[in-house]
């Protein structure tokens, strides 16, 4: 009954996938590529693919995919499991390689080593499954701390370097502003909804305290440790104190809504929020600073969860050579620079972080190079096709603690049991 609906939706998506043949020469082959489908992203990607086609004398077919990334994944899995060559070049999330690796081409053999080596090693590592390079980076993402320069100055607070400092500064500014008449002022907003975004945020808290990455690279479940408990405990103390209760249902855009309308001192978000906060209609224009996420205490470290998208090639493609070439073109320094300038997304090539044109548009990029380079990956590699279950169990456990239903220590020890059962004791 239900799967019927899903299947109909998928069939419709495939059928409706707009096929855009390009005018031009009949020579060469036609390579199909799945671009992202959100406004600017789609047009940007389509232009890029068409440029490649012109340059090489081939043709491209841009296939549109569902907007929701989970549905994209489901579509790709159905196509690939039927060994379909409908889409030659796939755009995949940084946490998908483990799920799709079996049906993707090993690019390690086809792409020159120096081309691969120009990207951040952390991303190349995330794109490598069992020694097989399955995707080339398109852009990268990492969690950042946004703060109100004007308010910190007003209340004589410095930019926090630890979560504890953030907690106290947020309280000072929030209380001061409320006394001054801004009833809706809150200290800190983040992504607290029970979804993948909370996994990203909570992984940052845990990792910044030195509490590991839920599951270590060897597959061992490590989440039940005192440092992780301390991190989740601190985060739970924020709710209703410096963070509104509503944060428990905030995704990226809700958090940005609160921050950009001037109702929050600090915000955790991805780099995309920068360009928007500097828009002409933004009430906080020129009042915003961006820095690395705080450390979990003096002994902790700055961290940010690794996000971003990558280009992969279908193993069953008939035009392997051209498809690989297109994937390489889409992840090339030229395309990444164009992306940084046009749609403000982060390159994965260190040298571009010194490019004057890019820095003029996105000044925070150079300062935060280290954050992007050292971003912490979600445990999608070791957990393979169980990653979504691991992530869901993790965000539910954290959400329970934040909502005050289960204390952090108990919640994480329950999670530990769940993950061990799920992994057949670390073997996945």
């Amino acid at each position, binding site marked *: 009954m*239900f799967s019927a609906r899903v299947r109909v939706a998928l069939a419709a998506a495939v059928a409706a996938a707009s096929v855009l043949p390009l005018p031009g020469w009949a020579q060469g082959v036609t390579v199909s590529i799945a671009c992202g489908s959100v406004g600017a992203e789609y047009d940007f990607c389509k232009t890029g693919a068409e440029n490649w086609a012109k340059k090489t004398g081939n043709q491209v077919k841009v296939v549109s995919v569902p907007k929701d990334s989970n549905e994209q994944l489901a579509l790709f899995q159905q196509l690939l499991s039927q060994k379909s060559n409908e889409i030659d070049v796939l755009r995949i999330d940084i946490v998908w390689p483990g799920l799709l690796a079996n049906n993707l081409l090993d690019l390690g053999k086809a792409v020159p080593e120096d081309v691969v080596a120009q990207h951040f090693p952390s991303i190349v590592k995330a794109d490598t499954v069992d020694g097989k390079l399955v995707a080339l980076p398109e852009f990268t993402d990492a969690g950042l701390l946004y703060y109100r320069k004007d308010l910190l100055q007003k209340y004589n607070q410095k930019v926090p370097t630890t979560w504890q400092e953030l907690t106290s500064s947020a309280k000072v500014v929030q209380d001061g502003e409320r006394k001054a008449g801004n009833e809706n002022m809150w200290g800190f907003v983040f992504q607290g909804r029970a979804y993948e975004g909370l996994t990203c945020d909570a992984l940052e808290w845990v990792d910044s305290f030195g509490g590991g990455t839920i599951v270590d690279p060897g597959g061992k479940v490590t989440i039940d440790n005192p440092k992780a408990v301390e991190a989740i405990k601190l985060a739970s103390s924020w709710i209703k104190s410096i963070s509104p*209760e509503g944060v428990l249902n905030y995704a990226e855009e809700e958090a940005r809504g609160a921050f950009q309308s001037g109702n929050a001192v600090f915000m955790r978000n991805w780099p995309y929020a920068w360009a928007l906060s500097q828009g002409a209609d933004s009430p906080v224009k020129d009042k915003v600073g961006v820095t690395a996420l705080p450390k979990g205490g003096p002994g902790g470290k700055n961290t940010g969860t690794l996000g971003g998208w990558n280009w992969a090639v279908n193993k069953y493609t008939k035009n392997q050579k051209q498809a690989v070439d297109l994937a390489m073109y889409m992840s090339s320094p030229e395309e990444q620079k164009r992306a940084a300038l046009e749609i403000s997304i982060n390159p994965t090539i260190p040298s571009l972080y010194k490019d004057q044109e890019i820095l003029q548009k996105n000044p925070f990029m150079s300062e935060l190079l280290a954050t992007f380079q050292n971003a912490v990956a979600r445990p999608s590699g070791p957990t393979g096709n169980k990653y979504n279950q691991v992530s*869901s169990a993790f965000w539910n456990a954290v959400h329970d603690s934040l909502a005050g239903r289960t204390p952090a220590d108990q919640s994480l020890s329950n999670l530990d049991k769940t993950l061990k059962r799920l992994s057949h004791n670390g073997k996945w």
Partner: protein
Amino acid sequence: MEAVRQRSEAESPAAAPAELTELTRQRRRSARIFVLPMLAVLAVVAGWPLLRTIFFSFTDANLGSLEGYKLIGLDNFQALAADGDWWNAVFNTVRFAITSVIIETVLGMIIALTLNAHIPGRGMLRAAVLIPWAIPTVVSAQMWNWMYNDLYGVLNHIFLGLGLIHQPLAWTANPHLALTAVVLVDVWKTTPFMTLLILAALQLVPLEIYEAARIDGISPLKVFWRVTLPLIRPALMVAIIFRTLDALRIFDLPFILTGNSKATASMAVYARQQLIDFQDVGYGSAASTFLFLVVAVFTVIYITAGRVRFGTGDR
């Protein structure tokens, strides 16, 4: 009431099968032929997927490799029975269905009785009532999401202004409020459906009965309980069944308002998460199959308990 029903039964052809004429039999035969194409379409778009889902629920199929499954008997159902999250979803769904259907029925009845009265502008009012029902659920859910927002939502603004609450409520985030928030949107959206069905039934009640009651000097309240309610009961039962079945497979409202949050996850949300997010087609199909069984059982209980007749007699 009893007399009315007996009369209608006596008139119905089903009550007297022995007296069928050749013409009636011929008509029935051609009716069957006309129904055939629809049955064929139903078998393809509803029957086959349903059977396949039930079949998959006995396998360990994965979305990543739909062919490479093996039969694992009742393992999925055993795991389902032992899963606290699943029972939480069942509990949420049942709670949602009961509260929303009761509120919708009562409100729908009140509004229908009002609209049934001869008041000026009745046609306009009837059309206006239907607006929430006409808006696509995804749109209205997202609209309500903005109205529920704890910082800039209009609901908090109004309630604060009226002095009903002292601090903004996090409608969709607070685990104790979230399900209520979902029920409220559903009530807003589907009360018009109830209103419409009840209104249609009300208009079939013969006016003479009311006139007789008035002449006998019976109080309006008593007229409602003894005359109106019994006469519209069959239609009311159909409306309640429709709503309950709809409510039991609720998916869009909780999913858009609160995502996969455990506080509001319904059975369908749970099944989708297993099928799509976790790619566990076997287990997700087991959850879907269970949902199907629950809906089927509810239908049977209702039809039996409410003695609603779908046979030819009522048409």
